[in-house]
């Protein structure tokens, strides 16, 4: 295995009660690269991220992170190891203020690092003006921004993003794209991105994979990301 392969999930199977959502999925993420996962509704993208973030234990398969088997670790232990998750649906702590939402990211940080990096406010200026507002009161797009910011507060080594552009205005999508590029350039973070929006994915992806019905049906790297083929794979 490639030494830069920080995250490797192999043969993941995942079931919800009686129904199976993933059938032997494998994916990797490398430090300094963006891995992009595409696929129609309900094919299992979120399910895969749930397995990686520890929300839902897979019924088979293995997940390693920096060489360590984390398949059965609880989510908080993964967070301690630098894995941050921006879930689909935002999952803002609605009764906490914006600032407090950001501060929940301190749990994994040593005392001296417990502050919100200024760049976060540069990226999402609206948050700075709303620090005292309750997270739940924000608009949908504002919440999405908060969710990304909250993940960044933890200074992650693996950033998992589930459809981060959902509900966000075009200008900020561009900014997010710039940030992800910036993070990639810094080269100390692996990024795993689920996205439906092809242009966005295309602009960012170093590696990519398309899922259908719980399986990876197509994958490749930047050079092989062909719009037609991908779109084809994503149709029925």
């Amino acid at each position: 295995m490639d030494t830069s392969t920080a995250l490797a999930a192999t043969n993941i199977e995942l079931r919800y009660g009686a129904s199976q959502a993933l059938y032997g999925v494998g994916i990797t993420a490398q430090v300094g690269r963006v891995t992009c996962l595409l696929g129609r509704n309900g094919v299992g993208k979120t399910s895969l991220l749930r397995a990686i973030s520890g929300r839902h234990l897979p019924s088979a398969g293995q997940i390693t992170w920096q060489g360590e088997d984390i398949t059965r670790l609880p989510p908080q232990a993964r967070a301690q190891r630098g894995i941050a998750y921006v879930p689909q649906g935002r999952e803002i702590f609605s009764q906490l203020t914006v600032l407090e939402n950001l501060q929940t990211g301190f749990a994994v940080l040593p005392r001296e690092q417990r502050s919100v990096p200024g760049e976060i406010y540069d990226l999402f200026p609206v948050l700075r003006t709303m620090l005292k507002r309750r997270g739940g009161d924000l608009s949908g797009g504002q919440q999405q921004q908060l969710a990304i910011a909250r993940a960044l507060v933890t200074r992650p080594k693996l950033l998992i993003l589930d459809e981060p552009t959902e509900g966000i205005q075009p200008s900020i999508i561009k900014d997010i794209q710039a940030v992800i590029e910036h993070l990639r350039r810094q080269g100390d973070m692996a990024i795993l991105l689920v996205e439906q929006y092809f242009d966005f994915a295309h602009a960012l992806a170093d590696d990519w994979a398309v899922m259908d019905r719980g399986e990876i049906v197509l994958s490749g790297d930047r050079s092989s990301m062909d719009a037609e083929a991908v779109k084809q794979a994503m149709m029925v």
Partner: protein
Amino acid sequence: MKRWTKILSLLAVLLTSMAANANDFEAQVLRLIEAGFPEKARLVPELAQSGDDRALDILNAWNDGELYFVRSPDRVVFAESTDDGITVTDVLNGEVTEGLGRRAVRSVSVNNALRQTLGVTLGAMRLSTGSNAQRLDAAQRLLRAADPENRALIETALETETNEAVRRELLHNIALLDFNYGTVPVQLAALNTLQDSLNSDVRNALTSKLAAAETDPQVRAEVEQVLEKIEGRVRFFRQMDNVFFGLSLGSVLLLAAIGLAITFGVMGVINMAHGEMMMLGAYTTFVVQKFLPVSLDYSLLVAVPLAFLVAGAVGVLMERGIIRFLYGRPLETLLATFGISLILQQAVRSIFGPLNQAVANPSWMSGSWVINGAFSITYNRLFIVIFAIMVFLSLLFVLRHTRFGLQMRAVTQNRAMANSMGIRSGWVDALTFGLGSGVAGIAGVALSQLTNVGPNLGQAYIIDSFLVVVFGGVGNLWGTLVAALSLGVANKLIEPYTGAVLAKIVLLIGVILFIQKRPRGLFALKGRAVEG
């Protein structure tokens, strides 16, 4: 010493008695065993007058109900209970007998009338020698008696009295005597002094003067004026009284509810065992007082942290053992905690027995702080108000200004996301439940000072606790505070008009109607955040 002899000589005149020889004295003391109350009443002044230096001790002990006798041969004794039975000391010759059975030693009976006689006799002695409180008490007793024969005694005491309150009381004493027995000008002058007394005895004296036919019209007019003034002030202080009663009831409600504001309000566990956590706190107080070598006055200082730990530990156990399997199913927590509450009740019943346990009030929590004749505040209530506020503020601090507080709120709002943020929700849950339970335990310590410590203690408060938390708005600590205090005050303002039962019904219906106006409690959160 000089004062003491002077008083004694006054007493001698007062009580018109002759000197008795030692044999008479001993015979009199032994009569206490057989004598009926009327005879005892005669014996009191005789003993006081005997001049025998054993008399004061005997009278004091008797007044305190600590004078005993044993039979065959008949002896009047002081008693002390030791590990192997009771040790008695003969009051006359100091002879000691050990190891007597409990029922062999009987107390020299005293009834109210006799206690009154003893009180006056001893009070007169103490009027010069006692502590501030004793002197004040003696002065008040004399005021009630309003006996002109005491005048000399009072005047003598006044000569040397330095304490302001006692002086004032003594002056009122004299003024009352003047008013009752003086000429018209003297009466008018006395009224001037009496008008700032709120003592009910003074008021009664004034009222009866009004009723008396022979009262001088000028005096009558003046008395009417003074009475009106006094009554105005009394009414004001009654109202103050009611408000304080309300605040104090409110603080009790606050204490009872505040732990629940955590376990139920923050965590969403319908914690039917909350009352039992308070019960554990109260029993901890009992155990501290009974089994730990701490003096009674400090026992509560030990009991508070200990109760926190005991109830908190039980809370943590409950959370780790049961509750944690039920997150996301809050209604089932009702069933489980109901079961736990039954088990805990039966557990204390099996360990400590079904009876109430005796928990004592330390001296600093007994009695009242008399601000004036119409307004006083009982110490235990006062301390509980202060204590409740302190507990409230500390909890508020923990919730809002500590990392733990933040994590606790995050976990209860979205456990999965909190985990994903690296928060160890298991720990946080356990500690939060422990905190809520611990605080309930602390509340139990406070309740032990007000009410029964028995297996039912928790049941008595559980309904009110839920009502307060919900009325204030679930999850809102300030709401809990305001709800508790306003329910307390409202109750006490209604109660004088309707009586306790109807007041409670009115309040319950009031809450039901109020919730219609504010379906999420007093301090309801508004906006999307609530639905989201």
